[in-house]
């Protein structure tokens, strides 16, 4: 059987979550590997959530937020972006590929972009294979 990566997605209510909805209602096809969690703003995504997702066996974590200038809480998306960039460096130091963490700006109108990004990300994770943390048998 081929490897099916597990992706945890955090999506902003005002943009990417609605974009995902639009992808669904427009019957756009994208892989079923992602479980989306709705948040009120990407600025509310604590880096701890992302590490917890990896620690519990996620192969990839996706974050979808509002385009620059569009965040409803001013700068939540920029904050999230900086956290993600720093987290990527941390993941690399932990021996985990930073490509397992991906952030994109996707608006409510961009259902097609959502489907594309998730398809691409799923492919990327298939290439990378299972998260190396799984082999460690996780200790929570």
């Amino acid at each position: 059987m081929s490897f099916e990566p597990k992706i945890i997605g955090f999506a902003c209510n005002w943009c990417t979550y609605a974009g995902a909805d639009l992808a669904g209602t427009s019957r756009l096809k994208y892989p079923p590997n992602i479980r989306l969690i709705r948040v009120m703003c990407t600025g509310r995504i604590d880096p701890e959530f992302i590490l917890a997702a990896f620690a519990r066996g996620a192969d990839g974590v996706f974050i979808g937020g509002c385009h620059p200038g569009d965040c409803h809480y001013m700068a939540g998306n920029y904050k999230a972006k900086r956290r993600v960039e720093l987290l990527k460096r941390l993941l690399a130091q932990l021996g985990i590929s930073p490509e397992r963490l991906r952030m994109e700006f996707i608006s409510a109108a961009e259902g097609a972009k959502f489907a594309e990004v998730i398809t691409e990300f799923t492919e990327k994770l298939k290439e990378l294979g299972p998260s190396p943390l799984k082999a460690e048998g996780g200790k929570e």
Partner: protein
Amino acid sequence: MAGEKKVKLAFYWAATCGGCDVATLDIEERILDVAAIADIVFWPVAMDFKYEDVEKLEDGSVDVCIFNGAVRLSEHEEVAKLLRRKSKVMVAFGSCACFGGIPGLANVADKEQIFNIAYKETVSTENPEGVTPQTESEVDGKKLTLPAFFDEVFPLDRVVDVDYYVPGCPPAVERINDLVGIVAKYAETGELPPKGTVIASEKTLCDECPRKREEKRIKEIRRPQDFMPDLETCLLEQGLICLGPATRGGCGARCIKANMPCRGCYGPTAAVRDHGASALSAIASVLGLDEEAEMTEEQLTALIDQIKDPLGTFYRFTLPSALINKVVRKKEVE
């Protein structure tokens, strides 16, 4: 146990630098209060007791065990379990016992890598046969044993149940005095604080820091050796990575008062599971924000690249108790 009987205390050091034992003596004359209320039944750094002496004690007969150091060797685990069995109250004393501490940074490597460097690769090592410590070996027909070196470092509560935590590298004298007060009250009334209590502040270090803060953003990260920070302004706002916003208070801001940023030895606040994640979050939040909308990917990368070692910076004292508590064995990236 009201009044007449003295409390029985045990001290132990596992993977430690010895600083926590020294800190215990820093309480100066209060050590006499301790002597007045307590009998010390075990204290390897100061008194000549053997593990056998502890084994002979009745289970539960030691009132309080004050344990410093992380768990690096099988010996540490065995003694932790022995002392847990013998003691009514187990205290994780110091950042090493609470979170893994500085020795916990060794979790960036496993046993094999550490042995290779320590016993084979360092320039000053001459070891042509590549001998490394073995748990069992034979010398002149006799079997010799050594404790096993674990693949990773653990905080104390990963091997035994812990009742109280006294964080700090080492804990501040005022907080050690608080612990003495707790032991004294216990001797007198038999009362103890709720299990799991962290003997420190419930707030962040920023809360007890005397410096002025203006919620300014920082564009450039500077290091303590590069300039002389002004004494009144928040160090983070002067560009130093200060972990005060993500670190539990209780030390009295002692580094800050010496004009040095906080490196996080008091660990996370009560609401937080992963200290490094919350420190990373706090620092990412204050990094250059003003003209953010126009910031290019390259500028963002340059900004973030100023933090040379996120793992060592944000998990300096807490890697073994992090959500991802060691570097993965099969690295995907170098």
